[in-house]
């Protein structure tokens, strides 16, 4: 028997009215205001190239005049991404029988059996896998 997704209706959808009201408000705001013609990138041949120059604060005539350099923001985002990576590793820790097990652990405890990367082949007591 195949099943299809069903729309679950009920009282839990009630707070969503706030989102709908917000959309109505924003749509009314946008539709009642007048915007001029967009300025466009008149003198720019390749937007991608100009983005690349702007990302690393490189002065080039292909970049529109009033575009800032973003090297500082680039480095800050780098730090943020590293922090997120570290946070991910920290959150992946777990505690097994009072001992903290991290995702960076390399040796395999015998509690979880031999490592299965060799097909689960057992080694004897003198083996160097301990």
């Amino acid at each position: 028997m195949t099943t299809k997704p069903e729309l679950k209706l009920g009282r839990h959808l009630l707070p969503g009215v706030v989102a709908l009201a917000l959309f109505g408000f924003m749509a009314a705001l946008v539709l009642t205001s007048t915007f001029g013609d967009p300025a466009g990138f008149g003198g720019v041949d390749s937007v991608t190239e100009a983005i690349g120059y702007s990302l690393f604060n490189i002065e080039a005539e292909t970049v529109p005049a009033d575009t800032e350099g973003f090297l500082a923001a680039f480095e800050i985002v780098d730090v943020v991404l590293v922090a997120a990576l570290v946070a991910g590793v920290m959150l992946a820790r777990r505690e097994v029988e009072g001992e903290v097990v991290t995702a960076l652990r390399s040796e395999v405890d015998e509690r979880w059996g031999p490592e299965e990367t060799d097909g689960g082949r057992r080694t004897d007591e003198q083996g160097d896998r301990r």
Partner: protein
Amino acid sequence: MTAPLEYYLLLSAALFSIGLFGVLTRENALIFLMSVELMLNAANVNFVAFSIYHGNLTGQVFALFVMALAAAEVAVGIGIILVLYRNFGDVDVTVPTTMRW
């Protein structure tokens, strides 16, 4: 030839409202994350639209940074959801009420 700015703004408002709807009505933490992504991407659409409106590339470059921050946010968010699932056996955000106070 570019589309009028109003269309971009309407698309962005719709995306943001869909994201807000998801955050307000759903209880699954993974759908929460997806809804927050929708809201961030609504901001991205606005950045790019106003970038061409002003003839200034700043918005397009900043949209790239928003994407990088969204990636970091999802990395931490999925880590938190994993811990949530391990501790509560569920990804329902209404279950871990002890973290409220």
